[in-house]
């Protein structure tokens, strides 16, 4: 019985690791898709875009919802944003990464989690 439990714990750990790696892979693919769509030249390097209300108005509806939610939360994971918007976590992760590529947000890894935030100091 004990051996079975040990085996079960090990396989849960393994599955968790696979899930994490898949999520990382997903995020990287999202970024690559965005780069392909817009081309590298449009991605701001030194001058991050300001996420002011006029910019929020100009965003497509799906990205605006994500961006406004992050403005309210200040700093959040895709999971936290998805709880507010009531959309799937993977969907929010895609939108957040698009906003990062567009230069409106920044992303920082803290341990296993990726946090998104609006860089107000630039």
């Amino acid at each position, binding site marked *: 019985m004990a051996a079975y439990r040990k085996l079960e714990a090990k396989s849960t750990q393994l599955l968790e690791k696979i899930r994490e790696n898949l999520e990382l892979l997903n995020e990287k693919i999202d970024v690559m898709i965005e780069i392909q769509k817009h081309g590298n030249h449009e991605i701001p390097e030194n001058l991050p875009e300001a996420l*002011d209300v006029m910019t*929020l108005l100009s965003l497509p509806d799906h990205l605006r919802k994500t961006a406004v939610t992050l403005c309210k939360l200040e700093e959040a994971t895709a999971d936290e944003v998805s709880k507010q918007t009531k959309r799937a976590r993977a969907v929010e992760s895609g939108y957040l990464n698009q906003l990062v590529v567009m230069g409106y947000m920044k992303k920082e890894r803290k341990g296993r989690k990726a946090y998104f935030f609006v860089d*107000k100091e630039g």
Partner: protein
Amino acid sequence: MGKIIAVHSYKGGTGKTSLSVNLAATYARTGKKVCLMDLDFRAPSLHAIFKKQNLNYWLNDYLNGVCEINKVLVDVTNDHGNGGKLFVALANPSTEAIRDMTAKDRKWEMKALGRLLSLRSSLLNEMDLDYIICDTSPGLQYSSINAIVTADVVLVVTSLDASDINGSQRMTSELYDLFEKKTGILVNKVIAEYLSSEKEQKKFNKYIKNIHTLPVLATIPCFCEVLRAAGDFIFTEERPEHPFTDTIVDLAAKVEKF
């Protein structure tokens, strides 16, 4: 949890400030804790109504990151509370301050949005206020849109002027709907003859419903007495028996449930 209300309009002179002040006073009179904010930095008004000229800190300073919001709040409960609490956060009326606010860049406006959004935590959660009422600039101004994004409820004040109706319709589809805000229309300064009988009133209500896709929360007649008061005092406080006061009390109840 309290509510943030933004009072907005397409055109100027629709009665935003008058309705904001009277709504805030009405809530305070019924025991609510309220903060009224002047977000019209181009043409500040509330300092004149509440007769406060020489303050150390203004709402401009809070948005500039110079001080925290508690330094800006002026407690006017003694003069206007009548059971609840009433604070005001005033815009600096000096020409220099107005010039400074009109020259802000996008980055500053982005930070100002963050400062406004954090009022939910400092005023509604920590100070336990029931309402923050934001009186805004007309049209598509940064400070007004910042207030709309921050608000839970947007009240759009409109007259029956054709350009005002047209502008309000456009803002509904191009501003309020885009931010998915609960928005209600207040039709102000309605000529008395449109509301003279039940039949006329029904006809008028039908006309208004055809114009606005948003719910109409109040139809406020144009009262000469309100105009005569000239913003020198808070009308609903001085004239509790007046039909204008009844309309504002009714509006306050509707907004509470909205």
